C-alpha cells in the first residue's frame, strides 16, 4: 500500500493505461505544458509527448466529438473537460453521438471513450464552476457514469473505464483531489457497476457518492456517539446502478437517506429513492430521506456557498429525524 491523493491516483491510472495500451491518449485543454487546470496531467507531456497528451483549442464540443470519432477509429481517448459545468457545451456530442453510437451500429462498433470532469462546490468558484452534473445525463441510456469517492476507487475505476468499450463519464470532485488514501502498489482495477458498503451499521443506510461519502462517514461518526449506528454505502457508479447492494443494505437497516451535493429536486437521489422504495418496500420503516444542496444556483461567496451545500450536520439532522420518526 502507498498513500496517494486522489489527484495522484488519477494521474497514475492515466499513466499506467498510457503505458499499457498504445491506443490510449489524452485530449483536452492545457493538459500539456500547463499540466491541466487541476494539475491532473502534470508531468505526462514530458513522459509521453504531444501525440499522447493533446492540447486542444478552447472547444469543448470538438473535444468530445473528436474523441468520439477517434474512438470509432479504435483509439481510446481520455478526454478532459476542465470543469463539469462545461458538459453543457459538450452535451450534444455526449448525448447524441457518444451515448448512441453503439446502438446505432447494433453493437458492431465499440466506443471506448472516457470523459473526465471535475464537479462540485466548496471552492468559491462561483455558479459556473461548481455544479454537480450527474443527473443531467442520468436519463441517457448508452452512458456509464462513475463518481469515485477516494484515491483507491479513483484509480481502480478509472482503469476500468479506460478498458471499457463503452463511453464512460468519469466525474471527479474537485475537493477530493487533495484527499489522501491507501492505494495498492501493483496493478488493480475496481469494477464499474459495484457499490460498496464503506461502513457497516444497523440503524440506517446513508447512501452517497463522490465527496459526500466523506461527509456521510463524518456524520456516521457523530451519530455513533449518540447511539445511532449508521451504515454508509458508496454508490460509486450511478449508471449502471448496483441496486442489489443498495437494497440489501436498506433491507437490513430498514431506513435510508440519500446524500449528494447537487440540489435535491431532480438530482440523482430521486432515482435511487425510487428504485429503493421498490426494491425494499416491505422493509422500509420510514420514508427514504434525501439530503442535497439548496434549490438555487451555486452562490459564489464562501458564506453563502457553505449555507447552500449539504454538510455533515445536515446529514446528522436528517438521519435523526428519520430514526426518531
Amino acid at each position, binding site marked *: 500500500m502507498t498513500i496517494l491523493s486522489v489527484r495522484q491516483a488519477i494521474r497514475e491510472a492515466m499513466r499506467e493505461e498510457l503505458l499499457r495500451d498504445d491506443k490510449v491518449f489524452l485530449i483536452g485543454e492545457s493538459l500539456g505544458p500547463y499540466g491541466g487546470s487541476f494539475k491532473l496531467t502534470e508531468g505526462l507531456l514530458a513522459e509521453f509527448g504531444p501525440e499522447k497528451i493533446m492540447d486542444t*483549442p478552447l472547444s469543448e464540443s470538438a473535444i468530445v*466529438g473528436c474523441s468520439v470519432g477517434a474512438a470509432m477509429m479504435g483509439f481510446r481517448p481520455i478526454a478532459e473537460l476542465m470543469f463539469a459545468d462545461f458538459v453543457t457545451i459538450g452535451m450534444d456530442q455526449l448525448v447524441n453521438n457518444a451515448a448512441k453510437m453503439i446502438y446505432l451500429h447494433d453493437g458492431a462498433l465499440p466506443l471506448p471513450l472516457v470523459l473526465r470532469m471535475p464537479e462540485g462546490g466548496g471552492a468559491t468558484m462561483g455558479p459556473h464552476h461548481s455544479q454537480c452534473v450527474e443527473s443531467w445525463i442520468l436519463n441517457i441510456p448508452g452512458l456509464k457514469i462513475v463518481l469515485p469517492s477516494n484515491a483507491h476507487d479513483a484509480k481502480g475505476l478509472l482503469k476500468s473505464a479506460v478498458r471499457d468499450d*463503452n463511453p464512460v463519464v468519469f466525474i471527479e470532485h474537485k475537493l477530493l483531489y487533495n484527499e489522501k488514501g491507501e492505494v495498492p502498489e501493483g496493478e488493480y482495477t475496481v469494477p464499474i457497476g459495484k457499490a460498496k458498503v464503506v461502513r457497516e451499521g444497523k440503524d440506517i443506510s446513508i447512501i452517497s457518492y463522490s465527496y459526500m461519502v466523506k461527509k456521510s462517514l463524518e456524520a456516521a461518526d457523530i451519530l455513533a456517539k449518540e447511539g445511532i449506528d449508521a451504515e454508509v454505502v458508496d454508490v460509486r457508479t450511478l449508471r449502471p446502478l448496483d441496486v442489489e447492494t443498495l437494497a440489501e443494505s436498506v433491507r437490513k437497516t430498514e431506513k435510508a437517506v440519500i446524500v449528494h451535493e447537487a440540489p435535491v429536486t431532480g438530482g440523482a437521489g430521486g432515482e435511487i429513492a425510487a428504485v429503493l422504495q421498490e426494491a425494499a418496500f416491505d422493509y422500509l420503516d420510514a420514508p427514504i430521506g434525501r439530503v442535497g444542496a439548496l434549490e438555487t444556483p451555486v452562490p459564489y461567496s464562501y458564506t453563502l456557498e457553505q449555507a447552500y451545500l449539504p454538510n455533515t450536520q445536515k446529514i446528522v439532522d436528517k438521519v435523526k429525524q428519520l430514526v426518531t420518526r
Partner: protein
Amino acid sequence: MYVEKLNPKDYEKLYYYLYLTRYADELICKNYKQGMLQESHHSCQGEEAIAVGSGILLGKDDYVCPSLRARGYFYLKGATLKEMMAGMYGKVTGPSRGKNTSHHMGDMDRGIVCGSGIIGGALPVAVGVGLGIKKRGSKGVVLVSFGDGSTSRGDFHEAMNLAAVWKLPVLFVCENNRMAMGNTIEGEMAIDRVAIRADAYGMPGVTANGNDVLAVYEATAAAIERARKGGGPTLLEFTTHRWTGHGVKDADAYRDRAVVESYKQDCPLDNFRKVLLAKGILKKRDLDRIEKAAMKEVDDAVEYAVQSDHPPVDIVATNVYV
C-alpha cells in the same frame, strides 16, 4: 487537371450513380407519398453531382460522413442500395436492423461514418476520424458533407478550427443550395460564398459548380491530394439548387415556383450527358444501357425492401452497450 485521368469506365460509373441517385430519389418520393416509407426523406434531386463527383474519388482507406442530402456517397463506399432502401422502409435488413435510419447509417468497415440528426453534430466526429487516420499513419482522408445552413452551427466552427490547427486530412464539403429549410442564404449569413469561411481557419477554401460533376471531381481531387500529402483540411463549396421542398412532407409553398422550375434547367444529369455526348465519351445507347441497369438496381432494391421483414421486437433492447 485531374479529370484527364478519368477513363471511360469512370465516366460510366459517374453517370451510373448520377442516374441511380436520381431515379431512386424520385421513386422514394413517390412511394413516400403512398405512405410506404418510414424514414423522413430529404430529396437530393438536382444535387446528385456533389456526392457522386467527390465520392468516386474515395478509396478503401478513406472515410465519408454524408449529409442528409448526399446519398451518392453511400453507394460509392459500398453500402448497397438494397440495405439503404430497406432502411427507408424500416426493415430488419436496413442499417443496424432498423435501429438507425439509412441516411445516417454508419459502417466503419466500409468507411462510412455515422451521421447525426443534429445538423453540424457530425463534423467534430469526422474530425476525430481524421485524427484517427493521422494516428494510424494512413494516407486516408475523411470527407464530411453538410449544407450551407449547417455552417451557422458552432460545431462547424469548432470542427473546422481543430482540423486546421492539427492539419488533419479532412475534406469539408458544403452543398450550397442557398436554403436551410425555409430560410434563404441571406437570412443565414451576410456573405455570398461559404468558402470565404475557410480563411478564418487558415485553410484553403474553394468554390466550384456543384451541378458539374467534373468540376466537383476536379476540386475534390486537388483537396484529397493535398490532404494525403499532409497538407491538412480544405473547405470545398459546391453551388447547387434545391429542387424540392426541404423534406418529402414540405409542400415548398414559400418559394416562387418559376424560380424553382428554372433551377431544373441546370440539371447535373443533363449537364453531364451533354458533355459525354458532345465529347463522344459515351453514346446515346450507352446512356440507355446504363440507365436501364441503374433502374434495375433500384427496382430490385425496392422489391427487396418491400419483401424484407420488419425487425423482430426482441432486438430492441440489445446492443445498447457492447
